[in-house]
């Protein structure tokens, strides 16, 4: 393993200064559950490692002006154990809970998971349906993007060399909203998504009329995608079994288009219907009982 300079800045300003001033291949160590392996297997050979594990004020989950704000160094466990998120953004709770093992969830961070830009990320589809914004900070200022807009392919983002993702935020969904996540893994735990779906449905008060719907699919493209044409099937209509069936067919078509001619296509074309139907039916039942 090649030598690297190691920094453990105590606050974010110090971190940004170091990041801006040091030269060479520099890496931010968030949880490190992917980075440490990559360094050991020499897939990357950083000259500088900036460890944020002990950097203050990056680990919080709070409610502010109708928004939920999550510090990027919050671990998956922090997110899962947040009552606020469990109540207001169940989709994020479920997706984070389905990631990895307890050990990984205890150490991996939500910010790291986004920046890693894996096709099979569990957190991003959930954040996409919550229409989440990420905050990128550097010595020269702050930039904000929708979470999907910083993802530029497998393990690729549009972050500048001197930027750190510091916060994820999203507007708290209204009371007439249901959300959820379902992934298909090879086993009941410790599994990477073969395909996944996150969904948010908002209805007009005391009706089943869909005011807004957001659907995101994981592991069907280089980064998770929004399934807008499937959302359109639902928006403005009364949610029904029939409508869900139509929506599921559209989701499958979107998946097929994105997967392209890969060996996994026949399997994913079919199985995405299974997980979509299950999730949408579950949300439908929830709407009924609300």
């Amino acid at each position, binding site marked *: *393993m090649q*030598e*690297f*300079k*190691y920094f*453990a800045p105590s606050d974010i300003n110090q971190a940004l200064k170091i990041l801006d001033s040091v030269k060479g291949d520099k890496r931010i*160590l968030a*949880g*490190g*559950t992917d980075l*440490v*392996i990559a*360094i*050991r297997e020499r897939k990357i050979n950083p000259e500088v*490692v900036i*460890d944020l*594990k*002990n950097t203050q004020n990056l680990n919080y989950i709070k409610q502010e002006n109708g928004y939920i704000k999550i510090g990027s160094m919050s671990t998956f*466990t922090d997110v899962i154990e947040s009552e606020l998120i469990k109540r207001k953004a169940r989709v994020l709770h479920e997706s984070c809970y389905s990631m*990895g*093992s*307890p*050990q*990984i969830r*205890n*150490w991996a961070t939500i910010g790291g998971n986004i920046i890693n830009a894996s096709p099979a990320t569990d957190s991003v589809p959930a954040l996409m349906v919550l229409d989440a914004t990420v905050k990128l900070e550097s010595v020269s200022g702050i930039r904000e993007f929708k979470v999907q807009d910083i993802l530029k392919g497998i393990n690729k983002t549009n972050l500048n060399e001197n930027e750190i993702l510091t916060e994820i935020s999203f507007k708290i969904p209204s009371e007439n909203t249901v959300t959820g996540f379902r992934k298909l893994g090879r086993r*009941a*735990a*410790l599994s990477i998504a073969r395909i996944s779906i996150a969904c948010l449905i908002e209805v007009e008060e005391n009706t089943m009329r869909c005011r807004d719907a957001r659907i995101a699919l994981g592991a069907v493209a280089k980064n998770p995608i929004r399934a807008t044409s499937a959302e359109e099937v639902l928006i403005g209509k009364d949610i029904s079994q029939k409508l869900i069936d139509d929506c599921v067919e559209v989701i499958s078509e979107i998946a097929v288009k994105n997967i392209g001619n890969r060996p996994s296509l026949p399997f994913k074309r079919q199985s995405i219907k299974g997980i979509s139907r299950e999730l949408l039916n579950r949300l439908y039942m929830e709407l009924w009982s609300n």
Partner: protein
Amino acid sequence: MEEVKISFILNDESVSVEVDPRKRLLDMLREDFLLTGVKEGCSVGECGACTVLIDGRAVTSCLVLAPQVNGHRVTTIEGLQKNGELHPLQQAFIDSGAVQCGFCTPGMILAAKALLDRNPHPTREDIKTAISGNLCRCTGYEKIIKAVETAVKYLEGKDENNRTNDRKKTETLKKLTEEAISDDIRVIGKSIIRKDALKKTTGEALFAGDMRFENMLYGKVLRSQVPHAILKNIDTTDAKSLPGVKAVLTYKDIPGANRVGIILKDEPVLVDHKIARIGDPIALVAAETQEIAEEALERIKVELEELPPVVDVKEAIKEDSVKVHGDTNIIAIKNLIKGDVEEGFRKSDIIVENHYKTNFVSHMFIEPECGIGSYENGVITVWCSSQNVHFDRAEVARVLNMPRSKVRVIQAETGGGFGGKLDISTQCYAALLAYYTKRPVKIIYSRVESTMASSKRHPAIIRCKTGATKEGKLMALDADMILDTGAYASYGPGVITRTVVHITGPYDIPNVKVKGHLVYTNNPMAGAMRGFGVPQAAIVHESQMDILAKELGISPYEIRKRNVLKPGSYTATNQLLTSSVGIEKTLDAAVEKAKEMLKGWEGIL
């Protein structure tokens, strides 16, 4: 490398160290603090054997850089005992029979502790979730889950005798004729706590990787990255010149035989001519540190002439195929003949014929192979993870050209085997390096190296034709099979024999004809794995039974009941069975239990 000064709480004591920031927490704990209860099983955070607690949370220490714990509280299995008393979880693991090989045990206990510290009254689902990041290959988790439930009771102060309750689940069907002397039986039949349970729950059990010797070197193996090639030249000059390197060995340095193998001696200790698979060993290095040894491997220059590989077993049996060794890829053809199979089919009313296919499977014992060699006073000693030290001794003696009496092989605690630690792994390498350096040498495989080098379960392609009368009596079975043993025979000749002999299943079939081929390819080596060819056979005979039953319009239970072996039956090898033939009893007992426990049991009756 610039070291980083860190301070943290380790097992309730404040410690300060200067540490290379590249070091993982796992390595720091094992090497600098000698806390070898922290195990390394996969290096990628998947197996959970390296689990420690950081601020009370379970974390895989292979994914944490040492300086990241600065200012935090770290707990390892060694920190669980208080004032010499076991933690209730440790006691519960012992009492519940939750310990087998013990390699996953420390991590498992810590993951459970992280749960119970936060949630003293977990549900069964909570427990499963809490330990879902800890893989166990031995227990099937059942007794581990039970151990955590038991620990909950211990922590509540309920000191009930768990072990007697535990027994209720298993029913022992006593033979009615059980001897009158059963009153005199004291120890047999009792669920006595295993001898090694205690040290495996405290982290004190020493696996080979946990052993340290003064002046110890580290060994590494250079392995082929191509499946089929002729070795033209090896240049070790550059590797030898690296400071800290104490030996670089090639086949030329082997004092004795350069072939090992359980049944056939076809596997080179170090390749001298032909590379037959990816992972074939080409050279050995011993150096002062693992890192230097790794660097030395990169400095060895190997010239190869690549050959086209044969990786499809159906290709490999063709006469004009690429040959792995010698002039045929067929190692063994086994023919079993009982009765007259044609006549048997003529007497059958229903005949079904199907093709079956199974894959390579990996043992994935949680402890990768490790061995340490030493050479003192003319005696080679090897401590290793192994299933057969006497075989290991014979092979080391042949390779070093020493009498067996001067070779001692000692089994270290072995973290699972399942057949995969029957072949020679590190033993000859550690011995050779110790022989040349006169210093103890430890070789520890990474998970990936372990998977590459160890044997696999044989993939099988099996055709099977089975005939029965309309009354459901089996009359004839005709099968042929091809087993891919990969680059070397290993236990393959034994496996094919066993598959052929067992293909009838536990049924009385008067006419049987089976042909089995064992074939070399340039695939990974296949050898012994739990079941030894019989799992492949069982998939075939049990599927055939259900398919026949459907054709005959009788139930899966009925067709078995009408054909099971009994005392007085003859097996496929014409062996007369006289006693201890319990198949019918297991069938009836299982069906009785199914009626009680399973939904839809009518479907098999």
